[in-house]
């Protein structure tokens, strides 16, 4: 410190003897000097000195020097050294991180950089000033300007994004720097752009429009693709930002043939590369995989996904990914992510699924890659996340593909003779009855995915027989599952088997019959449903049992004597009671893990304990459970509506049509009501927003004033100001602090209120969407019935076209 002061003496001139100026005093005199001196050298020296002090005396320099420094940026533009000092000083004052020099000083608030940033960017011209400096070719000025913008973006990302967005050349200027041949500037610009593009679709689009993908691929390739350094990772992170949740940019990426340009990124390492993967390479490849998954994520539109999948295959990327799967020495987390990626690249795409199905692993004897993967899934010793990934990949492989579903079931049928070969089916059966709970769960769910929307395979699977003990006669797979369900004490196994059995029996009378014939199956289900244990998992089990019972009733073809549809229904009424039964059913969708699973096709479990419910099961449950009315009546033809599969035959006529029309009218009215509510909410939201902005701005005014006063107070210390002056200031500060607290309170309640409104709004929007979907379903049905009526020779008046139209408005 003494050293610093003596260094400053030359700039400030000798002080009066005996007087040691305080930091605040020094800052004040330096600022004055920058303001008043007519000599450029003087101003430059003073700026340099301010920079030197700006870490230790951040508050003082910021509070007293901000305006002066802004002036320097405007007026001294010709002198790059001065500009550079000014930029660096501002960057220190607004730095998001805490300096070593400040660690001991309790006076400095933690978020001081953010507070100064807020003050600085309030005048948008200040941001423009920095943006203009990007045009300067001088290395240090350009670099400092980029760094300062990065700090500002780190501190106030949303505000800065909005400000830059309305500056016509704002984004373009930054993009130009990506082509700067001075690597340091290019690299810092990358960091800036990553911050700039985070979560703002409009900026992402402009950056893409400004040829970002071309630039980034140039850099990635010049740096050696996945073997390149951290700069490759930065490029990929920026690409990810541009693509994530931005279908317009994904479209652009696809149309611009950029997918093809990713191929060299996935070149498999040479055979002899035993050196292993550097941590940087692991990070790079992770990002690349992430980019691929962003393109084919099940959250994207079907059109985008299928286009990208086709291109990924044709460009040879799927091939490369499979090579990584089969390569040796690949780190486990990369392997896991590659498995997930391969899954999403093939999901629902027959050509790609077939391709993966034909990949052979270089094992001895050679086995299909799918079989090798499944071996890992049912192997307790493999990492948990890897096993989850295999399940997901396998589900994707079966998804919407009757061939791969049939092939799996085929491997279990008696006719498949080749016993020596290990097959997918055998592995899953082994897993189903293994002592490892996770293997049970994974296998049951995998098997269940072979049955989705596939009545033929449901029937075929009924033919599967298992040889249990030597000597005893073989048992059907269905009976074995039912037996296991009753025997196991493990929650995850039970849930998995109940899900499998529900999927199997739904819309398959043969499977219902098979299940009802299994020893004590019905009694077990009824007991489970009646159970009175209180805990979320117990509720779930009760609900799942009720669900399976409901399926057995609804899809029952009366072929088992004691358990005809009618007698089963009576049994439920007598033993459980209709209301209890319906209540138990609704428990399923209340479970936390059900709601988590329903969100995304991929099981996103962090720990084995979170493995419980499968996405596709949620879909089945949703379709079948949907009651017509709130109470969910339990009567044939209503309640368990669902028309699909077993139509209720005759009896549908004009009455049904009328019923639907009435329903449509009713829904329409409800829709109008919701729209009106939505409008209300939007208005309220707007009003709250205005109030929020008001209090925000008065709050920030007070904050500024406070910061300034604080600085003045600490400056006053040095001047040994009269005690009562000081106490006056302190009183003022206290008063202001109280005011700020009060405003903060208001702000908080307003924000909470706003959030509540937003949640409500979201809910209403969802409701509205649901209703719209329902309406269009009903429209289809009405039309269907109409044409059926017409074909039966009935005359149908055309008044429902008018109903339809009013829906569209």
């Amino acid at each position, binding site marked *: 410190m003494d050293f610093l002061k003596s260094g400053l003496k030359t700039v400030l001139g000798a002080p009066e003897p005996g007087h040691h100026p305080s930091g605040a005093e020094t800052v004040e005199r330096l600022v004055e000097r920058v303001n008043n001196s007519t000599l450029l050298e003087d101003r430059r020296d003073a700026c340099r000195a301010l920079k030197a002090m700006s870490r230790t005396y951040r508050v003082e320099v910021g509070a007293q020097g901000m305006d002066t420094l802004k002036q320097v940026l405007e007026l001294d533009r010709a002198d790059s050294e001065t500009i550079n000092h000014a930029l660096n000083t501002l960057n220190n004052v607004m730095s998001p991180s805490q300096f070593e020099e400040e660690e001991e000083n309790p006076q400095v608030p933690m978020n001081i950089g953010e507070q100064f940033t807020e003050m600085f960017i309030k005048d948008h011209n200040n941001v423009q000033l920095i943006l203009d400096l990007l045009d300067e070719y001088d290395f240090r000025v350009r670099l400092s300007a980029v760094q300062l913008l990065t700090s500002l973006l780190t501190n106030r990302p949303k505000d800065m994004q909005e400000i830059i967005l309305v500056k016509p050349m704002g984004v*373009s200027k930054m993009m130009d720097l990506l082509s700067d041949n001075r690597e340091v500037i290019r690299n810092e610009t990358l960091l800036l752009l990553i911050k700039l593009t985070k979560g703002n*679709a409009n900026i992402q689009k402009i950056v893409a429009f400004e040829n970002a993908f071309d630039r980034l691929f140039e850099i990635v390739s010049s740096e050696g693709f996945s073997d390149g350094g951290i700069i490759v990772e930065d490029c990929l992170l920026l690409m990810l930002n541009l693509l994530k949740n931005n279908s317009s940019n994904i479209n652009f990426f696809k*149309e611009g043939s950029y997918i093809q340009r990713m191929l060299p990124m996935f070149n498999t390492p040479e055979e002899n590369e035993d050196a292993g993967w550097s941590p940087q390479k692991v990070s790079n490849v992770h990002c690349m995989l992430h980019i691929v998954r962003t393109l084919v994520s099940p959250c994207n539109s079907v059109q985008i996904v299928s286009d990208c999948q086709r291109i990924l295959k044709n460009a040879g990327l799927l091939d490369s990914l499979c090579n990584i799967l089969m390569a040796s020495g690949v780190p486990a987390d990369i392997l896991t992510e590659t498995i997930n990626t391969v899954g999403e690249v093939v999901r629902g795409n027959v050509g790609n699924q077939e391709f993966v199905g034909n990949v052979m692993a270089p094992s001895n004897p050679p086995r299909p890659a799918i079989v090798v993967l499944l071996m890992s899934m049912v192997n307790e010793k493999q990492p948990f996340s890897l096993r989850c990934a295999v399940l997901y990949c396998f589900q994707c492989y079966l998804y919407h593909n009757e061939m791969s579903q049939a092939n799996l079931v085929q491997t279990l049928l008696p006719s498949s003779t080749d016993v020596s070969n290990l097959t997918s089916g055998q592995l899953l059966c082994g897993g189903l009855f293994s002592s490892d709970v996770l293997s049970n769960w994974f296998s049951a769910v995998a098997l269940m995915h072979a049955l989705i929307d596939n009545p033929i395979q449901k029937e075929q699977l009924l033919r599967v027989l298992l040889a249990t003990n030597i000597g005893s006669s073989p048992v059907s797979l269905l009976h074995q599952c039912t037996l296991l369900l009753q025997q196991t004490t493990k929650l995850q196994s039970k849930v998995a088997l109940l899900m499998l059995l529900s999927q199997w029996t739904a819309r398959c009378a043969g499977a219902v019959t098979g299940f009802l014939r299994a020893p004590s199956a019905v009694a077990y289900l009824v007991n489970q449903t009646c159970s009175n244990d209180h805990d979320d998992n117990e509720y779930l089990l009760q609900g799942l049992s009720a669900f399976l019972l409901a399926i057995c009733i609804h899809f029952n073809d009366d072929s088992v004597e004691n358990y005809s549809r009618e007698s089963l229904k009576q049994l439920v009424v007598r033993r459980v009671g209709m209301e209890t039964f319906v209540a138990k059913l609704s428990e399923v969708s209340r479970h936390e893990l059900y709601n988590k699973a329903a969100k995304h096709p991929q099981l996103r479990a962090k720990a084995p304990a979170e493995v419980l419910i499968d996405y596709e099961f949620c879909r089945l449950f949703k379709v079948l459970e949907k009651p017509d009315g709130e109470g969910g009546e339990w009567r044939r033809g209503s309640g368990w509506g669902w028309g699909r599969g077993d139509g209720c035959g005759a009896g549908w006529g004009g009455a049904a049509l009328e019923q639907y029309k009435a329903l449509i009218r009713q829904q329409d009215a409800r829709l109008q009501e919701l729209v009106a509510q939505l409008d209300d909410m939007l208005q309220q939201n707007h009003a709250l927003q205005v109030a929020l902005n008001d209090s925000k701005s008065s709050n920030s005014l007070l904050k500024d004033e406070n910061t300034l006063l604080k600085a003045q107070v600490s400056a006053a210390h040095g001047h040994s100001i009269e005690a009562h002056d000081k106490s006056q200031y302190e009183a003022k500060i206290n008063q202001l602090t109280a005011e700020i607290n009060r405003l903060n309170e208001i702000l908080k309640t307003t924000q909470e209120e706003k959030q509540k409104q937003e949640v409500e709004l979201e809910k209403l929007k969802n409701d509205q969407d649901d209703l719209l979907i329902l309406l269009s379903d009903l429209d289809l049905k009405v039309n269907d019935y109409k044409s059926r009526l017409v074909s039966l020779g009935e005359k149908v008046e055309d008044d429902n076209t008018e109903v339809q139209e009013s829906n569209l408005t």
Partner: protein
Amino acid sequence: MAYAYLFKYIIIGDTGVGKSCLLLQFTDKRFQPVHDLTIGVEFGARMITIDGKQIKLQIWDTAGQEAFRSITRSYYRGAAGALLVYDITRRDTFNHLTTWLEDARQHSNSNMVIMLIGNKSDLESRREVKKEEGEAFAREHGLVFMETSAKTAANVEEAFINTAKEIYEKIQEGVFDINNEANGIKIGPQHSTGGGASGAGGAGAGAAGGGCC
């Protein structure tokens, strides 16, 4: 897949004049009467042929509302062509053309080709702006003019393709600096077999080597 040139377009004009419908008609050959309001900017692409050369059009459809005006401005600089659209059944959209044009001229590169389009020509009975008025405006400001219907597809192909022809001619005349991607023009990756990614030489008219990627 391979193209000789790539041109970037933007479509501008008041909201509701049919910009998104024009794009959809051009890229997908269909008309969608109920259309979402464009938020920010949407993207579409199509390949066309001019003078025997494959040309890829990358088209950015902007939102017309005032709130998005500043976002739209970011797209002027990098575009080689602009379709400035008004609605012949709404005079106010015609009256706003001057503002749009000023904005475009101020923020774009001076060579950008601007095509003036009077859309919804199928709605003759509701016409508020005479064809002659559109022609006169175009003449006065040095624009190419055309009336289109995104609904019947009348003149839609022509509007996009004529703009491309104009840009192509400017390239032939050497007006555009095609090596500066900021102009909204890219030279395609020449599909020379075997060669590496660099060195885009080959048959390209007077184009210097260098390559764009």
